C-alpha cells in the first residue's frame, strides 16, 4: 500500500510580524489612482520635470491597458483601493542606529544587518515605498561602484545616465502593471559598476511591505559596464494581511560587453500578495546574465525574468525553483530573445506543487533572423506531491533561423517508487528516503542560491522545504 509522507508548507510565521501598524507614523496617499495622486507622489519625491511628465504619461497608458487574461486570476486585486504610496515618516539613512526602532527590529529579525556584517558588500533596505537604509562598504565604493537609492541618484552626477536608461527596457507600454509602475514607482536602487571592476562580494537589496492594502513599486536599475562583474541579491518578504497587497516592481539590468551580472532573487511574500514583478536584462557582446530565482511566497505570482541577448556571443543562464503550496498560484518562468550571433541560453527550472497549490512554468525562447548559430536549451521538471495540486508547463519557441539549435525538455511526475525502494533497501526509512529525494530535487537549484549570504534563504529552503518532511 502506498503511503504518503507529509511535506509541510513553508513556514512564514517568521515573517508575519507587524509590530502594530500604526497609521500615525506613516504618510500615505489616498486609495486608487488619479492624476492628482501621481502629481502628489512626484512632488513628494522632488522629481525632475521629465520624470513628472513620464509618470503622467504612464498613468494614461495604465488607464487604457487591460488586465492580462492569460494567467492566474487577478480578480482579488482591487486596483481602485490599492494604496500606491506609503512611506514611513523617516528619512533614509546610512547609519543603522538612526533607523526607527520598529523598522530596525523588523529587519533585524530578518537578519539583514547580520548578513551585511558577515558577507555583503552593501545593503539597501526598503520599507513599504521608501528606502530606509542604504550602505555600501568603503572598499567597494573606492572601486568606483555606485550603490544608492534611485531617487537620490536622479539628482546626482548620474542623473543623465538614469534618464537614458530608465524604463527603456521595461517601457510603460509593456503591460498594464508596467504602466502603473511608471506612474507611481517609488524607491529602489541604482547600481553602477565601472568598466573592468569586479565586485568580489554581493550587493543586496531588501524589500518589505508592511502597510495593509498597499502596493510596492520599487525600481532597480543596474548598469554593469564593459568587463565588469557583479552579483546582486534581492530578497522580498511581507507580513500577512487580509487585504490584498500588490508588488509591481521593475528591474532593469544592463550588462556591458564581456561583463557578467548574476541577479539572485528569493521571493517570499505572504499569501495575500499579488506579485507582478518585471525583470529584464540587455546583454551586450560577450556579456553574461545569470538569473537565480526562488519563488516561495505570494498568493499569485506573475514572474518571468527576461534576457535580450543583443550582442554576439551573449549568454543567459537561468536557474529557478517554484514551490506552490496551499492557496498559491505561482505562474513563473522566463523569456529570452536571441538577437546576436552565437548567443546561448541555458535554462533549468523546477517546480514543486502541494496541498492544492498550482505552479505554472511559462517560457518563451525567440531566435531572430540574424541570430546565426544561436543555441538554447530549456529543461524543466515538476514534482507533484499530491493529487489536489496542479502543475502546468507552457513553453513556446519561436525560431526564425535555420542555423539555430534549440532544444526543450520537460518532465512531470511524482516521487518514483523505485527510487524509494532503492533507498529503503539500503537501510533508510521511507520518510528519510522521500526527504532525501525532495531535497535532491531542489538542491541543484538551491546550490546556485547564495545561501551563505542571506539568512532568509537559509530559513526557507533548508529548514522548511527539506527539513520538515516526515
Amino acid at each position, binding site marked *: 500500500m502506498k503511503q504518503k509522507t507529509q511535506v509541510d508548507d513553508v513556514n512564514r510565521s517568521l515573517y508575519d510580524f507587524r509590530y502594530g501598524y500604526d497609521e500615525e507614523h506613516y504618510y500615505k496617499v489616498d486609495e486608487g489612482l488619479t492624476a492628482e495622486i501621481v502629481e502628489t507622489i512626484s512632488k513628494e519625491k522632488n522629481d525632475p520635470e521629465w520624470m513628472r511628465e513620464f509618470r503622467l504619461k504612464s498613468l494614461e497608458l495604465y488607464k487604457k491597458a487591460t488586465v492580462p487574461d492569460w494567467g492566474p486570476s487577478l480578480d482579488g486585486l482591487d486596483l481602485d483601493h490599492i494604496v500606491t504610496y506609503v512611506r514611513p515618516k523617516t528619512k533614509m539613512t546610512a547609519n543603522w542606529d538612526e533607523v526607527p526602532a520598529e523598522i530596525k527590529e523588523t529587519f533585524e529579525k530578518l537578519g539583514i544587518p547580520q548578513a551585511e556584517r558577515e558577507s555583503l558588500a552593501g545593503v539597501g533596505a526598503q520599507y513599504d515605498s521608501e528606502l530606509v537604509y542604504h550602505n555600501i562598504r568603503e572598499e567597494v565604493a573606492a572601486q568606483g561602484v555606485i550603490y544608492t537609492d534611485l531617487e537620490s541618484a536622479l539628482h546626482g552626477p548620474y542623473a543623465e545616465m538614469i534618464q537614458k536608461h530608465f524604463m527603456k527596457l521595461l517601457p510603460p507600454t509593456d503591460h498594464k502593471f508596467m504602466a502603473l509602475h511608471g506612474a507611481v514607482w517609488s524607491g529602489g536602487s541604482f547600481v553602477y559598476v565601472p568598466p573592468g571592476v569586479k565586485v568580489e562580494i554581493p550587493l543586496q537589496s531588501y524589500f518589505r511591505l508592511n502597510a495593509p492594502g498597499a502596493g510596492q513599486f520599487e525600481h532597480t536599475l543596474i548598469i554593469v559596464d564593459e568587463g565588469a562583474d557583479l552579483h546582486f541579491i534581492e530578497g522580498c518578504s511581507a507580513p500577512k494581511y487580509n487585504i490584498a497587497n500588490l508588488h509591481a516592481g521593475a528591474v532593469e539590468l544592463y550588462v556591458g560587453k564581456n561583463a557578467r551580472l548574476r541577479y539572485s532573487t528569493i521571493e517570499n511574500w505572504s499569501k495575500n500578495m499579488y506579485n507582478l514583478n518585471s525583470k529584464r536584462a540587455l546583454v551586450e557582446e560577450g556579456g553574461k546574465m545569470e538569473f537565480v530565482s526562488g519563488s516561495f511566497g505570494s498568493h499569485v505570482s506573475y514572474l518571468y525574468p527576461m534576457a535580450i541577448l543583443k550582442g554576439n556571443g551573449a549568454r543567459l543562464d537561468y536557474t529557478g525553483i517554484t514551490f506552490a503550496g496551499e492557496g498559491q498560484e505561482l505562474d513563473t518562468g522566463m523569456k529570452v530573445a536571441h538577437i546576436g550571433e552565437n548567443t546561448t541560453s541555458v535554462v533549468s527550472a523546477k517546480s514543486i506543487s502541494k496541498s492544492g497549490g498550482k505552479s505554472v512554468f511559462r517560457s518563451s525562447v525567440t531566435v531572430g533572423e540574424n541570430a546565426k548559430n544561436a543555441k538554447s536549451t530549456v529543461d524543466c521538471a515538476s514534482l*507533484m506531491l*499530491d493529487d489536489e495540486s496542479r502543475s502546468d508547463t507552457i513553453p513556446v519557441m519561436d525560431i*526564425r*533561423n535555420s542555423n539555430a*539549435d534549440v532544444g*526543450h525538455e520537460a518532465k512531470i511526475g511524482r516521487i518514483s517508487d523505485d527510487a524509494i525502494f532503492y533507498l529503503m533497501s539500503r537501510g533508510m526509512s521511507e520518510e528519510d528516503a522521500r526527504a532525501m529525494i525532495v531535497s535532491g530535487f531542489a538542491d541543484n537549484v538551491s546550490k546556485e542560491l547564495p545561501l551563505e549570504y542571506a539568512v532568509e534563504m537559509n530559513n526557507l529552503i533548508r529548514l522548511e522545504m527539506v527539513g520538515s518532511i516526515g
Partner: protein
Amino acid sequence: MIQERELIINHLPMKTWYWLKINDKNAKIAVKNEDFPAEVLTKGGIAASEDESFAETLSGIETGMGKEFEAYIESQLYLPDLFVAEEGKDAELSIRFDYDRQSAGVAGNDADAADDAAVPAKGQALNLYHVVAKKGSNLTIYTDHLSRNEGTAVVDFRILVEAGAKVKLVQSHRFSEDFRFFSNVGVKVEEEGSFELVTVAFSGKEMNLALCTDLSGDRSRARYDIGYVSGNASDIDQNYLIRYRGKDTEGEIFSNGVLKGTTVKRFRGTIDFIRGCVGAKGAEKEDVLLLDDRAVNKTAPLILCGEEDVEGEHGATIGKLADEVLFYLRARGVSEEDAYSLIANGRMNSVIERIPETDLTDLKKELKREVFGVDEIETEA
C-alpha cells in the same frame, strides 16, 4: 452556395502571451455547404449506416479545432456520413478526395450531388464523417486528400472507439501551393481501446490540422505520428491534444517537420492529465528541420497536470541538423544539401512506414513515391 465564415480555431488549451501569436488562429473558411463526392471503399466488417443512436455521442466529442468550429460544423445543412465497424471484426475504410476531378461517378454519394459537386479548379468542399468502431473491432481508415490546383476543403471526423477496439486513422494531404485545407478530428476512446493517427502532409497554401483524443476509458491508448514537408510559402497551423481521463492510460505525440521558403508553422501539442487518471503516462516529441532562414517555426508543447501519479515528458529539437550527424554524412562524401534531404526524407519515411500494408489502396506506395520520386524503396518496416 458558398459560405464564407471567419472562425477562431486551434486554441491553446491554456493561453500564453499574446505577442507570441500562438494562442489560436483566426481562419477564414469559404466552402460549399454540401458533401464532396469522395471515393469510398470498404473491406471487411464495416458499412455505411443510418443509425441515429450514436449521433449525440459523436457530435459531443471534443475536437482539436475547438468549440467555434464545432458549432460551425453543427450548423451545416446535411448530416455526416456514418460508418460502423462491426463488433470483433477487422475492417478497412478508404476515402479518397481528389479535389481536381472534373467529373463525378463515385460511390457513396447520390448522383445529383456528385454532378453538382464536380469540383472545378477553384473547388470548395466540406465533408463530415462519423465513425464508430464497435467493441473489439480493428479498423483502419485511409483518407487521401489530393489537389494540384487552387481550392479549399474542410473535413471533420468524429470517431468513437468502443471498449477493446482499435482504430488507426491514416491521413494523407498532398496539395499544391494554392490549396487551403482544414482537417478537424475528435476521438473518444473507451476502456482498453486504442487510437492511432498517422499523418503525412505535403505543401499546401494553408494547412490547418487538429485532433483531440479523449482517453476516457481505463487502460486506453493513443499515439500520433505526424510528418510534414511544407511548400515554399505554406501556413501550417496544428493543434494536437490528448486528454488523459481513465486510469493507466497512455498516449504519445510524435511530430516531424521540414520547413522550406517563407513558411510559417505553428505546432501546439498538449498532453493533459486530468485528476483521477492515476498511472497515466504521456509523452510528446517534436523535431523540426529548418531549410531556410526565412521560415518561421513556432512550437508550444504543453503539459497540463492535475494528477499526482502520472509520468509526462516532452521534448523538442528545432533548427539545423546536429553537428555530429552532419559530420558523419559529410565524412562519407554526402554534400550538406544532400545530407539535409536524406535526413528529411528519412524522417518522412519513418512516418509512412507506420501505414499498414493493404490491397484496398495504393496510398502507402504513392506517398513513398512523393518522398523519394521512385516506386519501390527497400526499407525496414
